[in-house]
């Protein structure tokens, strides 16, 4: 099919570079969107398989990065949905197993990361997506709104609700630690 060949040839040489440029961001976004570290490799691969398949259809209506994040969001949501069924998301301490025993700094980072994951796990998918894409992936609010398919004002409301939750949950976690210490 000559038409398909032409588009394939057009897109493919760009793909390896695209992977190199975006994969670190996609990895981080997937992790913050609730993909467990041990599964992130597989989900990352799925994201880029989809990117490769759909790249010829990319129409530059959004930036390439935002477009890839859209795929990323859907894959992460699928993952979480599936993981909820198998009751694997949010199990405490899962990420701590890789900790080297004598490295306090690493332990501290892993603790903070586990705390962050547990706080984010309490958010619903909609708020989480807005929070992650705005706060860490630096998309504008209009891009975030487009990405999640809601009016900008709704995206703002979700961002503020997510922020409030994170602040509250962090406070609760720290208070809990303090009372454990005393």
């Amino acid at each position: 099919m000559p038409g398909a060949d032409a588009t394939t040839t057009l897109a493919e040489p760009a793909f390896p570079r695209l992977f190199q440029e975006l994969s670190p961001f996609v990895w981080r976004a997937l992790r913050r969107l609730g993909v467990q570290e041990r599964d992130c490799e597989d989900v990352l691969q799925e994201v880029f398989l989809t990117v490769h398949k759909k790249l010829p259809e990319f129409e530059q209506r959004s930036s390439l990065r935002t477009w890839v994040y859209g795929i990323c969001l859907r894959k992460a949501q699928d993952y979480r949905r599936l993981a909820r069924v198998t009751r694997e998301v949010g199990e405490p301490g899962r990420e701590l197993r890789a900790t080297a025993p004598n490295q306090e700094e690493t332990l501290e980072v892993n603790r903070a990361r586990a705390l962050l994951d547990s706080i984010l796990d309490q958010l619903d998918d909609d708020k989480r997506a807005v929070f992650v894409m705005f706060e860490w992936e630096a998309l504008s609010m209009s891009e975030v709104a487009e990405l999640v398919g809601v009016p900008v004002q709704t995206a703002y409301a979700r961002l503020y609700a997510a922020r409030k939750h994170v602040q509250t949950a962090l406070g609760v976690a720290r208070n809990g630690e303090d009372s454990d210490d005393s």
Partner: protein
Amino acid sequence: MTREPVRWLESSQPSELLALMRVGAEELAPPDVLARVEARLRAPELARADSAAQPSAAPPGATALGWSSGLRVKGVGLVLLLGAAGLMLYPLVRSTAPADAPVRSSSAREQALTTPADAQRTLPASPTPAPSANAAPPPVTSLDRAPSEPTPGGQAELAAEPRRARLRSSARSSEPRAQPIDARLAEARLLEQARRELAAQPGRALVLLREHAAQFPESWLEEEREAMLIRALAQTGQGAAASQQLAHFRTRFPHSVHTRLLDHALEQALAPR
């Protein structure tokens, strides 16, 4: 119009909250994981390149095997693919690692990010290609210059050669750049700002794009920036400059996904009204 809120990472927040956000921002993908994924994603391309060069010698089903799903490839196919993966792993690790990340997993950070499951999945081929008696040390500056000494995955090596030749011919002149994520984000933000202006205020977008070019002459987003520049020139009525820029773009990025769209955009912009 609602004013964009300031991101927590860029604002004065309580230190605990800021620390938490930083932990989230700084979680980088382990280079070995990225290398493995890219190797798996590339494998079918190797098969396709091989198929194009030698139709009868193409491994049957290789393309479908690699692209049909995210499942891991198993069995004989895996052995073949891993040979090729090993060849690519070392330069890939170089190209995807942050500037301060060592190639070998020796830092505390990498140990923290590499799970036992990852370790089990590590490719049998060494990330650092084994030195060979008659081969020079592998160049590490480009994906396209993987070492060519014989390897256990000899057949994959043969399959990889046409692919490399194709990549060499289409390679960009720029070398892979390892940058901290924050620096990459700064580049992306400015470009996003320009993109937002493009529709309503292309003149303003032009200014931002030139600012981007001055600030980040070696940007990892250069291709996107140049594509946007052509659109901005066309939209500000600078048709001749846009055409000239597009010709340059074609040479610089011969396989860009943007080219076809830019042709169309320029045609529309230059069409008599």
